[in-house]
């Protein structure tokens, strides 16, 4: 586990931070979160062209930088700090990761260059009304009508799904009934005690399809979100043409990988967010005077800031672990991803809430940025499986690996 940060990585961090300071200050975040599209296409292009971070994961042969998850983690952390409004997680991490994980060279050749160049906004559509992020929760179906595959069903929580050019949609290609083989509490997002995220569930396999944003029969609508800086959409698919990716019925391992990658990516963002609110809280505690003293002199405030720092430190360890596993040790990724998701969710949620408390009244206003981090923290905690779900997954994976 090489946990030292190289000089190149520090340069990357520096470059991203400088870029975001210029192109995504709070005023810009405020502006974009009120726009219909929710992000700035020009900044997105610059992220791809100038900074070259959109294609960071994309191998060089497809026009990307061929860097590793470690580099992406740095970018995500900085974006989490700045609350950048952009389809980075969806396009540059999840959709890219899925395309790289699938065994489908043609798809890579067709889609990755556009992604790396910043031309294609892409996303993955997995969850549905069952509010689960696993193959077993997929009820949408795809049938082959002789000329091609046709998709039907509803997708929810699709990151940046309203404006994405390319949607990677999970659908059931067998004759199965969709959800339902899970025993236990299959409908929850929390600890489904009966079904694992690795469990395919239905008797029919699940496949991934590439669907164009402009495809006929696709109806997209924005979902109201808790976090206005991250857009999500509902897709209603009615006989929508799609291109099968990889082998039919073989998407389950990729979907499991997707969730693990999402967990690690969110953990990076969460760590950046926690670091930022710690800075905010400490800065305020040093300057805000009550009772004739800076409030940072009061142990109630001082020790709370220390607690945030402690949580942040744990988050940093968790991110280091998750990135290491994602980069070098995929056999441990399921465990590391759940560890990272649990710990970084806890850390950021605590940090964001306590930052408001340190600020007092001003921190509870709409105008103050504190609540945007609180919204992001709550939202990230509950996406792709909440901490209770990931604790359960962790135990399951530890048990499968070695017996407890």
């Amino acid at each position, binding site marked *: 586990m090489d946990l030292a940060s190289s000089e190149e990585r520090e340069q990357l961090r520096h470059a991203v931070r400088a870029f975001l300071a210029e192109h995504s200050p709070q005023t810009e975040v405020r502006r974009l979160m009120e726009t219909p599209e929710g992000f700035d296409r020009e900044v997105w292009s610059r992220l791809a062209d100038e900074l070259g971070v959109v294609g960071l994961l994309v191998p060089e042969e497809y026009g990307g930088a061929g860097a590793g998850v470690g580099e992406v983690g740095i970018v995500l952390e900085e974006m989490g700090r700045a609350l950048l409004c952009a389809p980075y997680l969806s396009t540059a991490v999840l959709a890219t990761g899925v395309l790289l994980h699938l065994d489908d060279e043609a798809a890579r050749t067709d889609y990755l260059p556009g992604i790396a160049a910043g031309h294609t906004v892409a996303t993955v559509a997995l969850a549905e009304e069952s509010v689960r992020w696993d193959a077993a929760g997929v009820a949408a179906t795809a049938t082959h009508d002789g000329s091609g595959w046709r998709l039907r069903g509803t997708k929810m929580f699709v990151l940046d799904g309203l404006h994405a050019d390319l949607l990677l949609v999970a659908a059931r290609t067998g004759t199965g009934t969709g959800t339902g083989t899970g025993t236990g509490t*299959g*409908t*929850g997002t*929390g600890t489904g005690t009966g079904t694992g995220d690795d469990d395919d569930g239905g008797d029919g396999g699940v496949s991934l399809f590439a669907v164009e944003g402009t495809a006929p029969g696709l109806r997209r609508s924005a*979902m109201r*979100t808790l976090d206005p800086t991250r857009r999500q959409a509902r897709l209603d698919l009615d006989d929508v043409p799609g291109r099968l990716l990889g082998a039919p019925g073989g998407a389950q391992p990729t979907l499991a990988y997707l969730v693990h990658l999402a967990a690690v990516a969110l953990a990076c963002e969460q760590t950046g967010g926690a670091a930022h609110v710690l800075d905010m809280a400490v800065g305020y505690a040093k300057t805000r005077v*009550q009772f*004739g003293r800076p409030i940072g002199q009061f142990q109630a405030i001082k020790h709370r800031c220390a607690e945030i720092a402690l949580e942040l430190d744990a988050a940093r360890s968790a991110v280091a672990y998750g990135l290491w596993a994602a980069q070098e040790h995929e056999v441990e990724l399921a465990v590391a991803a759940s560890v990272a998701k649990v710990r970084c969710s806890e850390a950021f949620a605590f940090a964001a809430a306590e930052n408001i408390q340190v600020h007092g009244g001003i921190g509870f206003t709409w105008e103050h940025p504190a609540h945007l981090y609180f919204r992001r923290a709550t939202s990230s905690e*509950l996406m792709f499986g909440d901490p209770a779900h990931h604790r359960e997954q962790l135990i399951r994976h530890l048990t499968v690996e070695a017996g407890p």
Partner: protein
Amino acid sequence: MGVRQSDGDPDGAQDLEAFRRRARSWLAEHAPSREGLGPGAGAEGAQGASYDVSVFHDLSFDDEKALIERVAGWHRQKIDAGFGALDWPREDGGVGLGPEFVEAFAAEETRFAVPPAHELVSVTVHLIAPTIGLVGTPEQRDRLLRTFLRAERLCCQLFSEPGAGSDLAALGTRAVRDGDGWVVNGQKVWSSGAQFAAWGMVLVRTDPDVPKHAGITAFLLPLDTPGVTVRPLRQMSGGTSFNEVFLDDVRIPDSLRLGAVGAGWKVALTTLGFEREATGGHSGVGGGWRQLAPLACALGRFDDPLVRQKLADVYISERLAEVASLREAAGRASGRPGGPEGSLRKLHWVRSLALASVAAEAVLGARLVADTGEWGTFAWTAHILGAPGYRIAGGSDEIQRTIIAERLLGLPSEERVDRNRPWREIPR
């Protein structure tokens, strides 16, 4: 669940029972019963059919205005029927009964679908009116006491300032004597309902050269006075429950001074003391067991052992809040002093809100992240985003803990650098 009689009224038990029956029959005539409304129904259940789990209102100006009028109207209806202002002296427009009658009526009232509480009305009736009753001049009492007690005009608090939050006594809004009046300059904040109030009770600094508590004076201020600007303040949960109030060369006649010059801090403590006495004001704020349990069932989450644990904590916290208010009522009835118990109640209540947030997250998961359209789910974001506000508003958790530690437990107060120094010299 009866509340014990005070010992001074040996025949009270009969009277109280008769009163209770009378109240019940009057209520039955004037308000729909809550029986059979089902567990999801909040205040006003039947007609409202609303599902409001928000901690802070997020109403339009017109809707909130209408709500306030309904609340104030119901309050006057009760007074006119002899069921309001029960423990006020007859000469002030009250009924002259003991607190046990107040509790009894309140207990009966919970069985009916009546308008909910609204903070501005409660502040006017339960905080400011009694303050005027205690320290107001005869003219002030004549002019404003009944008006406020009947909620005919409403009066908000103008206490906090951007630079004086937890340290309220550090407030810096200046009032300078000018003939038979005062000229006030400064800014107030966190004033609930100022946009609907005709009056404000304002604390100002009249002498910056004495220690901070000694240089404050209280006034009653008509909010249509020139120089008063009320600007709604949007909170993180959306909605504008609070206001900033700017005071630019505002002239207040000395006849509207409430209490002596320099006695404003004591007057403010009197007002805040009534706040601590007013119980039950928290129920109906935010969501809880009543909404979460059926929601968990509807979503198929009620069988999850983790969800059940968290729901149990919500239930326990809410049930014990009810028991605690009965305990306090019993304590008051037997003459035990109030004191820092209000701080215990507030901290428990804040914790209760937080437990409901935690349980809602367990029940709803990603349904809080984006609105799936399922009824009663995404609405919980208003609870989760509002709950942090009450860790701060009305005295932060930290301030409450200090009050408990010093006043209930007798622990020594901290070294204070701002004590016995002129306000002017204290770092700010």
